[in-house]
């Protein structure tokens, strides 16, 4: 896999496509993100932003993650002006008394893989080719940074008006809780700068080369779709495994605690004929098991990606419907998630275990 050096208005769609895959069915709509990025390039008379390879991060560098949080549904109506991300970033820098911090994605699924590029176009800083999740997760404490005891705060949340809050918290779960409440009071979307850290810590805790990885997946999938060998191209670029093909025969979805929670049941087709798969989701796909055998064949933190039978484009959880025919893939996650302390943050219990809170 070659690393991506520049993102332009022409290739941002490939990054968005790969990010949709790593979103594991969630992560928000990258369509809005790509359009804001293109608008920003035009407004700033830029034709690209630069991506800094992970290896070139110096121990003495300082990094801050740039992202958006809140309801994706509100995000398609109350679209930001584009400056909010950079605004939060600058406020956090001045709070820390630092300058020229590098920009890092916090996650690499959905819209938040595009956000750092928008921040970069405003601040003329490089975006680092790495992140803290290697995919998308719904909450701020679900990062490898947290697993390495790096505090998410001080963090800044702002809105499109210029309101902003600086949060200091005792741990990252509290950071999530407080930031979530502020985001709701700002009208459902918050623009955040968080997880400030030294290059030394970053090199230890971040998942390297994930922007390149997302871009590579998007590029391979697009080329594969055109060449009509999408599946091979996809499996090669993700090192993933196909675990099922089938038709959705049942869909249950409820909205609770600000999440879309539910499951689908799929009846197998082709070589999976005669078998039945159940996939659970909470915004993102979390768990896939073969019924009858009660055999779990994929579960978070692995990425579960559903793809349209014909177009091979990723199917997000909000696009699920009866009779949709999909291929299901399991994509391995960075080994940073496999150490017990990290795994606990994002395993099945982290989602279903605390469902009463």
């Amino acid at each position, binding site marked *: 896999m070659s690393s991506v050096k520049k993102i332009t208005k022409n290739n941002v769609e490939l990054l968005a496509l790969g990010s949709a895959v790593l979103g594991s069915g969630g992560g928000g709509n990258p369509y*809005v993100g790509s*359009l*804001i990025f*293109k*608008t*920003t390039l035009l407004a700033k008379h830029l034709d690209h932003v630069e991506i800094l390879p992970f290896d070139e991060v110096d121990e003495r560098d300082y990094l801050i993650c740039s992202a958006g949080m809140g*309801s*994706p*549904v*509100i995000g*398609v*109506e*109350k*679209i*930001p*002006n*584009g400056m909010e991300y950079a605004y939060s970033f600058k406020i956090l820098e001045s709070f820390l008394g630092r300058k020229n911090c590098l920009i890092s994605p916090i996650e690499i699924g959905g819209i938040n893989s595009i956000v750092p590029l*928008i921040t970069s176009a405003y601040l003329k800083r490089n975006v680092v080719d790495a992140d803290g999740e290697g995919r998308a997760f719904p909450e701020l404490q679900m990062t490898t940074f947290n697993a390495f005891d790096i505090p998410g705060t001080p963090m800044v949340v702002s809105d*499109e*008006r*210029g309101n902003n809050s600086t949060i200091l918290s005792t741990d990252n779960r509290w950071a999530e809780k407080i930031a979530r409440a502020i985001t*709701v009071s700002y*009208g*459902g979307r918050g623009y955040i700068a968080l997880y400030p850290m030294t290059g030394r810590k970053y090199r230890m805790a971040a998942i390297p080369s994930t922007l390149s990885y997302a871009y590579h997946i998007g590029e391979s999938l697009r080329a594969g779709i055109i060449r009509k060998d999408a599946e091979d191209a996809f499996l090669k670029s993700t090192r993933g495994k196909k675990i099922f093909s089938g038709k959705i*025969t*049942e869909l249950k979805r409820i*909205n609770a605690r*600000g*999440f*879309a929670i539910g499951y689908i049941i799929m009846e197998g087709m082709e070589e999976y004929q005669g078998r039945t798969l159940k996939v659970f989701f909470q915004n993102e796909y979390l768990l896939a098991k073969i019924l009858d055998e009660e055999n779990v064949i994929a579960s978070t933190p692995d990425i579960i990606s559903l793809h349209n039978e014909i177009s091979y484009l990723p199917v997000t959880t*909000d*696009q699920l*419907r*009866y*009779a*949709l025919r999909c291929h299901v893939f399991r994509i391995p996650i960075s080994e940073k998630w496999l150490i017990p302390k990290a795994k606990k943050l994002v395993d099945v219990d982290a989602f279903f275990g605390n469902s009463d809170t």
Partner: protein
Amino acid sequence: MKIRLGIDVGSTHTDAVAIDEKENLITATKVQTTPDVTTGIENAVNDIIAKLGEQKSYVNALMLGTTHGLNALLQGKNLARVGVIRIGLPAGEGIPPMMDWPLRLKKTLRPVIRMVRGGHEYTGDEIVELDYSGLKRVAKEIIESGVDSVAIVSIFSFVNPSHELEAAETLEGMGYRGNIILSHKISTLGLIERENSTILNAALIPVMERVVVSISSLLSKLRLDYIKLFFAQNDGTVANAAFAIKYPVFTVLGPISNSIRGAHLLTHRENAIVADVGGTTTNIGVLSKGFPRESSEAVYLAGVRTNFRMPDIYSIPLAGGTIIDENGSISNLSLGYELTSKGISWGGKYLSASDVVLGIRGESFASAEPRRVLDIMPRQKLEEIYSNMVRMWTDSVDRMKTSKEDVTLIVVGGGSFMLPDKMNGISEIIRPKDAQFANAIGAALAKVGGSAEKTFSYDLTPRQKAIQETVEEAKKAAIEAGADPSTIEVRDVDEVSMPYLPGASVRVSVKVVGKATLI
């Protein structure tokens, strides 16, 4: 006696029917659709009036389902010059209006685009106060630019429309006399999609004006200028000419919904899947409580991402004129209206899907000689092709179902004879009499409709009050569209909870229908 005319513009044929008040089909006609569409409609009107003879004096209404709007967008012809006012700064600037439109279409509209401060949150609170002085400055610039229509779009206007209403008042107060379209009248969630839909609507107004002028002048040439003109809408209802001119996007897919409504009227079934098998495509839609089920996804129209209410349709390129290639594969190409000159059964050289069916069944049909098919291909091969065709239809019907249970399938359109009598997953196949005129019949018998969609937080607005407010708005729309107020009834109230929106947010959609005011 009173007679209604129904006209439906299809891709190959324009059909017309005359129906009396007891819903009897008096006469029908089929002419070829012309590239300009209008000539085909005029031919159909002339033809059906001639067939009615003396009875023509009983005609009091003409219901028309036409593709003029869609064609105009695809060809970029006769569109208005549009002004766009978006209210929402400091939010929204990240994606300015018309950012990702196809360049050619955008240039055709020569838009004047302005943004001002204002707009609302999902709660209905203001993002910031509406900037009146900014609004006045923008209004002045827009008026001076001489645009034909203005689209006004405010963030979360479907929760709180007040800033759009104030902007319209400001424009009018400053002397603007052109058309003003407010986005909360067009659709709901999704700023870019709603804005695009509103702009398309503003652009299409002159197209519908021209249609109304040409049909009206034809009717007065025929000394029938007392006939009321109505247009088929995307939701299976009709609206009078004035309403259709103001809201043309609601009629762009009128002909498709006509077939679903026609299937309902011919069978009196409330719920079923409807397959409209034409010359080039089979359109599969869903009849739900007597009306077409609506699509919930963003739909691209002429390359523009939109979200106004459209029928949920799955189209496949398999129909009467579909060409079967030498290997027996079903191609994407169609003979279209040339079927009856180029199909093998009619003495031509091409094997079409119709030929396959006629050959197997040995039926003579529309002057066809099916034995010619058996001369070039063995029966067994034909059966093999036919089973592939049936598989495609079965698959497509299955895609439109919402659960595993077997459903009723109503088959309409000129190619409806081609479907088998039994299909997997289908409990019953109904092929109504006059199925080939289902679309025109659907138009002729349609009621006048009004719809409204609003989003509420049930924590803030009690459910009963929310529904009542939406019903009132739908009734107002129906009256504006030409419904007799005393006949209006609520056909559907739909509540969809909005995922991720805090505070028990629910989108309430209401559809009402009434009889056409014909005096």
